[in-house]
């Protein structure tokens, strides 16, 4: 069945998160970006929304709702509509938790989930991104070498959210010709976490760090999914879909900001919204926001049904990456010189969009 209908529950979640995004996230966004800072009470507030823990079974400390990638995608669009940096911060712990839920062994779930699903903010995060041009999450340069009873990890990971406080990292590495993921505790021998947070173009609100893995030893039980290995391809697919969700939110924010601006701003005797040059830009932007969203939903729905979602996730991610940036870029143009200043949020969304498009493996749905 082809259906774009939300469940009642999804509709309620969307409403609640939209309110949170407007009331809490958006007002914080500029300061967090300027100061590359994340208030602790924000993290706790987000935590209490239950984004990370809702879909975790009660036995592991969660709230026992069904695992739903479409619900998370909807929530993520709304959060990113508030601010993408704060959205990535809010959802980064879910990246690790979802990976365990979807691909972990029972032992891994029992061992790690309760500690990550309490009443206080806690996190493990994904360590997928690598330095160097043309980094490719599906062909990591970080290597895992099997040895008796476990593996040895070697390589560098970048853009790892919450490197300063995560208790665990899920490191994606090449194991012979496969890709595999490994649970690495922050105090593992051979792991060096960058002392300073990285300085990046966008998403400055979320602290991200570089990890150096210099012969980090992990046990067999630390390979995601055990000796057979989890479906790391599907894990990367959820990440692509998540970034695409964020891009939809960012692009929508830009359109919704530009509409009232264009209706107020007067040039040559009338509102610029009445000029086709501006009206068409925004009509096209709105059109692309819709198109992007349906691709995201399609990918999320395939993931939710356990189907192969690699192509659908690629399409959502690639299309949203390109069009999300284009919409944000148009947003600056509509505001002209004002759009170039940091008085208005459009330049922030433009930087967010550019950054989101290249960060496979930071968040997941």
């Amino acid at each position: 069945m082809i259906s774009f209908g939300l469940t009642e529950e999804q509709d309620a979640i969307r409403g609640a998160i939209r309110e949170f995004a407007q009331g809490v996230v958006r007002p914080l966004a500029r300061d967090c970006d300027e100061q590359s800072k994340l208030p602790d009470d924000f993290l706790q507030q987000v935590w209490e929304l239950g984004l990370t823990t809702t879909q975790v079974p009660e036995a592991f400390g969660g709230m026992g709702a069904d695992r739903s990638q479409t619900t998370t995608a909807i929530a993520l669009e709304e959060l990113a509509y508030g601010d993408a940096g704060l959205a990535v911060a809010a959802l980064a712990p879910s990246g690790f938790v979802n990976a365990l839920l979807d691909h972990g062994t029972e032992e891994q779930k029992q061992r790690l989930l309760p500690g990550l699903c309490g009443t206080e903010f806690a996190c493990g995060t994904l360590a997928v991104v690598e330095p160097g041009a043309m980094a490719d999450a599906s062909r990591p340069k970080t290597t895992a070498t099997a040895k008796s009873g476990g593996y040895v990890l070697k390589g560098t990971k970048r853009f790892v959210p919450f490197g300063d406080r995560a208790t665990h990292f899920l490191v994606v590495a090449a194991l012979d010709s496969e890709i595999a993921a490994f649970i690495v505790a922050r105090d593992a021998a051979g792991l060096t976490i960058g002392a300073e947070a990285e300085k990046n173009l966008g998403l400055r609100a979320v602290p991200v760090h570089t990890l150096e893995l210099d012969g980090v030893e992990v046990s067999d039980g630390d390979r995601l999914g055990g000796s057979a290995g989890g479906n790391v391809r599907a894990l990367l697919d959820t990440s692509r879909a998540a970034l695409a969700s964020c891009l939809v939110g960012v692009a929508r924010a830009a359109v919704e900001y530009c509409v009232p601006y264009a209706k107020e701003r007067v040039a040559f005797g009338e509102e610029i919204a009445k000029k086709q040059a501006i009206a068409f830009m925004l009509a096209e932007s709105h059109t692309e926001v819709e198109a992007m969203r349906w691709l995201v939903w399609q990918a999320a729905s395939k993931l939710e049904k356990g189907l192969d979602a690699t192509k659908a996730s690629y399409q959502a991610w690639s299309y949203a990456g390109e069009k999300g940036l284009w919409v944000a870029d148009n947003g600056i143009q509509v505001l002209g010189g004002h759009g170039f200043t940091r008085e208005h949020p459009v330049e922030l969304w433009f930087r967010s969009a550019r950054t989101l498009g290249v960060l496979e493996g930071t968040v997941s749905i």
Partner: protein
Amino acid sequence: MISFELSEYDRAKLDAIKEEGLICRKYARYYDEHEETEIPPDELPEAKDFAPTPNLASRQSEEDSGPSVMAMLYTVYRCWGDYAVKLRQPKAGGLGNAALMAAGTDEQKQRWINNFLAMAITEPGCGSDPSRVTASAVLDEETNEWILNGEKIFVTGGVRADGVVMWATVDKSAGRAGIKSFLVMKGTPGFEVAKKEKKLGIRGEDTATYVFSDCRIPRDQLLGGNEEVQKKGSGGFRGVMKTFNMTRPAVAAFGIGISEAALDFTREELEKAGVDLDYGAGMGNRSAVAEKFMKLEALHEASKLTVLRAAWLADQGQPNNMESSVCKAHAGSAVREITQGCIDILGPLGVSRDNLVEKWMRDCRIIDIYEGTGQIQRLIIARGLFDYTRDDLN
């Protein structure tokens, strides 16, 4: 619940139309090269064996898609076979039929439902702005007849049609409010098919010019029956414009079918050439040609989903005015880019008339023009965004 998987029942209907589409595709080049030849629709030798169009509204379970969604997918795969497949559609599919169903009285619907009705709006002096229609309708109170005068161009299916819903003004001073639509059957004295256009593409579908010279029709052939001219608002005009909320997604679906055919052809050629389409890889591990092709596929998928979204809203009984324009605007430009891009990838193979890709590119070029140009769709979308009227933004 969000879902994009077709049920088996849905799929069986679409598989059947694809199979039939492939048969029709064998004749695609013939129709393209014999624009002047009148071949009645059922003369495809195989057409007699085609199954009747399934009831798209029938659902066996909750897992099956809604009727509008299915109608769009059915349209997509009909045109995936070939645009000219439409030639053998049962004679109830003209745009005029859609107008009849949207704005006609019950009696009118019953009377004309089984005819193929074209729609005549465009004139030599007006296209995108139908409020400038100059064809006139004057009521002769003595005989209870309307007297129609004027010229209509670009009438889709106008040669083949049994009759037409034509737009004329009953009161030029009233502007848009004075425009009414009239049902005129072929053979009515004073109604002449004056010309058949020669076109870039969709040559299998005729496009006609009509001339009305003192053409008299009975008074009750005013569509909807409302003779009153409201000085305020757009009156009956709006009713007919509403027709487009489902025909625009359908036109977008024509284009989506054609672009899907072009992508399928190109994918096969890339496979033959050993090009690997690795959707999981990063950009650095894809060839330029694979990257380009995969992006065209994504564009296609995005466009198709906007069409299904507009149709799904209709199935829910929700307004879809904006979404109809969104999908028409999106598909209008997407299918141009996709079919032109496929030729880019295929090179000389793409422009050779030994294959159909060059024809698909020509056929697709109309999608962004008829049923409201891409620019008109953008105006509608922008008015929706800004909450503007036609007078605010035009």
